[in-house]
């Protein structure tokens, strides 16, 4: 996969209205968090549940973006890591009686372990070959889950008790779940963006941009590529665990190939080599199928396809890439306007 024209830190440290760009970035993040906190009080319970799922998808997509967007390893099989996280949480709760909030970290670690195991053979594969092998993982997932029915409950799946809000908190179950997912999302995005801005993140991008040169700079390719697979799976596995908790149910057929394809669609539509793109992608894969259904009962997938085409036509670098580009252009326009004034 060629580098999707990312802007890692190419923005000059410029000032807008006397304050630097980093300040404005923080303001935007604070605003977004505020909207996310207030959102459940502006919409119905059903919508709150939908936004919870969009947030869960966003965490899953962040994992995929790290691997495919930043490190250049294509995965068409991330639904499998979502399933591993979901089933790990479900089995811990159902079979071992672990409280739901204690299942998220172990579920993520289980996905991490499988991700690392998968990352090892992936070292020998590139581009389309890796895409096909990960796709085969997605294809096989439901059958694997059915096969180990002693643990997974076979095709029936596992039914879980949905956690209720504590009695002293009069907010209802949906909002309670929403806020817990939001907290996990904030931690995940904080850690993810720290990682990508660091020595490690630059090494991941260097490997994607020019592997030979990256090795000559001292970057241990097998180590970083394998860890990228593991960390990516960790995020997606955590998302899977949250999905199991909020829907109160896991079954093999909810982790089919289409889920994996939806993930890559969401990543690309949101902006695959960005952090914030995962949020837009999560919203896309949660809401666009519904909207398509509302527009046409008869041919919802045709409508979905048209949405997809429309998004990629207008924003080929994804929603986040589009916003970044606009911001740069706006700045350049202001700069030249300022320069004209000074003349």
């Amino acid at each position, binding site marked *: 996969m060629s580098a999707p024209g990312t802007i890692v830190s190419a923005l000059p440290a410029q000032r807008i209205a006397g304050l630097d760009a980093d300040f404005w970035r923080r303001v935007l993040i604070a605003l977004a968090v505020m909207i996310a906190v207030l959102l459940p009080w502006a919409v119905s319970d059903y919508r709150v549940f939908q936004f919870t799922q969009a947030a869960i998808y966003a965490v899953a997509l962040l994992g995929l973006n790290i691997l495919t967007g930043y490190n250049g390893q294509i995965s068409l099989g991330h639904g499998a890591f979502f399933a591993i996280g979901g089933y790990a949480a479900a089995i811990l709760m159902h079979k071992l009686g672990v409280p739901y909030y204690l299942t998220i970290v172990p579920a993520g670690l289980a996905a991490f372990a499988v991700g690392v195991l998968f990352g090892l053979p992936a070292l020998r594969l590139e581009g389309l070959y890796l895409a096909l092998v990960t796709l085969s993982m997605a294809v096989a997932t439901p059958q694997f889950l059915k096969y180990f029915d002693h643990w997974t409950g076979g095709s029936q799946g596992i039914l879980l008790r949905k956690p209720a809000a504590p009695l002293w908190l009069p907010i209802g179950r949906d909002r309670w779940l929403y806020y817990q997912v939001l907290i996990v999302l904030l931690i995940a995005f904080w850690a993810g963006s720290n990682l990508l801005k*660091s*020595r490690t993140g630059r090494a991941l991008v260097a490997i994607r941009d020019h592997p030979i040169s990256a090795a*000559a700079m001292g970057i241990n390719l097998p180590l970083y590529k394998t860890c990228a697979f593991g960390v990516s799976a960790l995020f997606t596995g955590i998302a899977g665990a949250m999905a199991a908790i909020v829907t109160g149910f896991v079954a093999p057929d909810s982790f089919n190939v289409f889920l994996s394809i939806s993930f890559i669609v969401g990543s690309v539509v949101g902006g695959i080599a960005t952090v914030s793109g995962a949020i837009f992608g999560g919203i896309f894969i949660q809401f666009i199928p519904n909207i398509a259904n509302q527009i046409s009962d008869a041919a919802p997938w045709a409508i979905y396809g048209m949405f997809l085409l429309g998004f990629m036509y207008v924003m080929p670098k994804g929603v986040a890439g589009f916003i970044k580009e606009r911001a740069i252009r706006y700045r350049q326009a202001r700069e030249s306007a300022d320069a004209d004034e000074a003349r």
Partner: protein
Amino acid sequence: MTAALKIATDALLEVRGVTVRFGGIVALDNISFTVAEGQIAGLIGPNGAGKTTAFNVLSRLYKPSEGAVRFAGRSLLALGAHQIAGAGIGRTFQNLALFRSMSVLDNVIVGAHARGKSGFLGNAFRASLGRREERELSETARAMLTFVGLDHLAERPIASLPFGTQKRVELARALASKPRLLLLDEPAGGLNHEEVAELSGLVRRVRDGLGITVLLVEHHMAFVMGISDKVVALDFGRVIAEGPPAEVRCDERVIRAYLGKAEG
């Protein structure tokens, strides 16, 4: 005899009997040469002589079928490609090999990767080691950009810069690991007259100011003869001359090798 031995043990880099084959082609045929600490050494030869292949052996990108390479008293062939920078060898590439989505500064910071230690977990949770490193690495990177005269372009996307400037960024990136030995593969390639003159001064300052030994591959004869303390000439994968530039320039086999080809 004793003098020869002394030179051999004093050498910072010692290539001995290295052979590299690609299928039927013998790209390097039993080559040996040394580079002493503090030298600027030139590796010359017509196109296809095996110069880049020799660099790729030193970078551990190619594995020689025979021979040994010692650097600062240790065997390089025991190391992996990613351990070469940490061992003290930096390099640039014949064709630009920058990280094209990154800014100039980030490119150079990646050059200092081998000087850092922080990992996935510490970086994700902003542990103090990672933050301190981040400061140190970006200070080193900025210093190197200043050294090559490009500090004012630090924040620019690398892809937006002209070829000659990108080559200088590559040099800064190689310097960011603070190497003992710097390998430059055709640093003057594609540069204009002025840029070549500037480059000579820059390479001298790398040796004199930073104390880094330099081994450079070059086609540009005036440049390489003017700057090198010693020159090694290759032809068809063999060393045909080794010595001071004035001697190598007059060597019959070197003249023949270059006259036999269309271009020098």
